[in-house]
């Protein structure tokens, strides 16, 4: 009986060791693989001031689409991502910059000069020239980007 109890205890002890070792191996692999899978999502990107347009080219109070090149690493390669921003000149040296990404599901909005509004082609989101939501499903206004004017050029922080 004692021998059986000893045997039972030994087996339980050994099975706990096996479980512990397996958990340790699984946990280590989980951390390594999990880190490799989600790592890029954790890396933040510092914004930079990027040249967008000469301020003289911008009409007053009309959102003008400007493509800004954003140099960044894309995995193993260095790319210049093209992002469209709307620049609205509001004064002699004042410019408002709106991101063209619809806040609903990320489609690209475009300026409808006839109705004086920014429209998203996906689900009918409509914004006014300040980026405020006028109609449709967008949950928030268009993102406003920081701008400054340097030697006649509008710089946008992206």
């Amino acid at each position, binding site marked *: 009986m004692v021998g059986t109890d000893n045997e039972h205890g030994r087996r339980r002890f050994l099975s706990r060791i096996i479980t512990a070792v397996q958990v340790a191996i699984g946990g280590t692999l989980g951390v390594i693989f999990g880190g490799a*899978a989600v790592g890029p999502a954790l890396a933040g990107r510092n914004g930079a001031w990027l040249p967008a347009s000469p301020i003289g080219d911008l009409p007053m109070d009309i959102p003008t689409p400007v493509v800004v090149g954003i140099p960044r690493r894309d995995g193993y390669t260095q*790319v210049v991502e093209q992002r469209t921003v709307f620049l609205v000149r509001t004064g002699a040296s004042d410019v408002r910059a709106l991101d063209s990404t619809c806040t609903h599901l990320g489609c690209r909005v475009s300026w409808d000069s006839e109705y004086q509004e920014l429209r998203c082609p996906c689900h009918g989101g409509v914004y006014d020239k300040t980026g405020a939501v006028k109609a449709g499903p967008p949950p928030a206004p268009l993102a406003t980007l920081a701008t400054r004017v340097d030697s006649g050029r509008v710089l946008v922080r992206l």
Partner: protein
Amino acid sequence: MKQRLAQLGDWIDNRTGVRALRRHLLDEPIPGGTGWWFTTGSVVLFLLGVQLASGVLLTFYYVPSPASAYDSVRHLMDHVAFGGVTRGLHYFGASFIVIASVIHMLRVVAFGSYKRPREVTWISGVLLLLVILAFALTGYLLPWDQKAYWATTVTINVARAGPLGEYVAGVLRGGDTLGALTLLRWYSAHVFLLPAALVTLVAAHLGLMRRHGISGPLRTSSEPAKPFYPYHALKDTLVVAAVFALLLALAVTIPAPLEALADPTDASYVPRPEWYFLSLFQMLKYFPGPLEPVATMVIPGLVVGGLLALPFLDRRPDRHPFKRPLVIASFAIVGAGISMLTYLGMKDSPQVSEEWSPLAIAGMEFARDERCVRCHRPGGIANILDETRMRKEPAWTLGHVRDPEMITIGLRPVPAGGMSDAQAQAILSFMREVRSGSAPTVTSGERSASIVLGRYCASCHMIDGAGASSAPDLSNVGARHDLAWLRRWVANPESVDPLASMPPFGDVLTPQEMDAVTNYLAGRR
């Protein structure tokens, strides 16, 4: 010889037990009266096999990188023997699998086959359906065309609405932007992770099906049970052959679509998912702002949760549909809802025009300029433009068109005599269109009008989604103004509106050009 072969067969069987395995697989007793409806599972299994085989073939040619993915798919379709058909089988096969899986599921529901003791078989089937939809979703992005890019953008943004949304979206993208890492991880999911899940679930589903046997007809038949092979196998084979004939006919006659190369700056593109996701896409329109998670999480979650819980909610042994009105009515209501949303989504989808925009037609004319063809000609130092794919971003192409010798845009002012912005935009439109189809035939009037629009108008106006947007869109201008008004306006806008900011073109255009452009615009309704 025959004896030798028999001996060899005996030797192999002795070592592997292959004959017993064959008997186990083929001699399954099928209840008497089991009809054609019980072939739907075999159709799904066959289609999964076709997807697996065609998918492996596609990876022989496909390169999962934004710089090469589109070109590699184009190469497969244009230059590889049976490449177009192989991709067609894979592309249309995806739709076939969704349809066949849903038919199979409805058959199981109609015959009450999910009931005790087959609850886990049913759950493995629901999980298989989700894996099949995940395959469809991840396969989308791989060709890296406009549809791929924008449909995936929407999908990833849908994920943002859930708990830890931004973080989940970051993991799905592999960073903060949709790019090379996104393509690689979606490719990896499509060819490694999901197939592993699929094979595991198919093995479990088939193993459970064999463990419990098939549910058979609703009423016990007086016919005796028969072995699966060859009696039911014949039915399976005939239905599979019919489905395959239909799939092959589609793959051979209709080229699998490949839109223009993904362009993250293109605001004119209207993304629409494949038809089987259209109901979800359409539903997003009815849940604005803070209600969005209802469409993205709550309703789909309830449907999937309801499917998984079905065998535990409906536990009575009755299998006849008339004795299960609640279950049948629930499926009918959800089915009708999905069908209605799909119909509304299709109705709302813009018609994709096969015709080129006038700006692209103008660009085709401008690209015949000596400054272009001195390099872009057969035997020249650069490819002819019809075969040139834009490897660089649009801004570079625009800079290159305006100043062909410039390698890095913005290094120097554009020299005198370079092409105007509007002309460069027109050539860019041409380059986008020429890769997605051959040039259309146009009348001389359309050609003249397109050249005028491309040369003068597109630097301020937009038409068919191309050009600038600082002046009204000309796409439907004929619906707002008649020919006489347009002639007066184009010749001298101030004669119509003293505050007009558009310059007069009366002295710029020849009478023929004026006729062509105003007639063309008046016809745009």
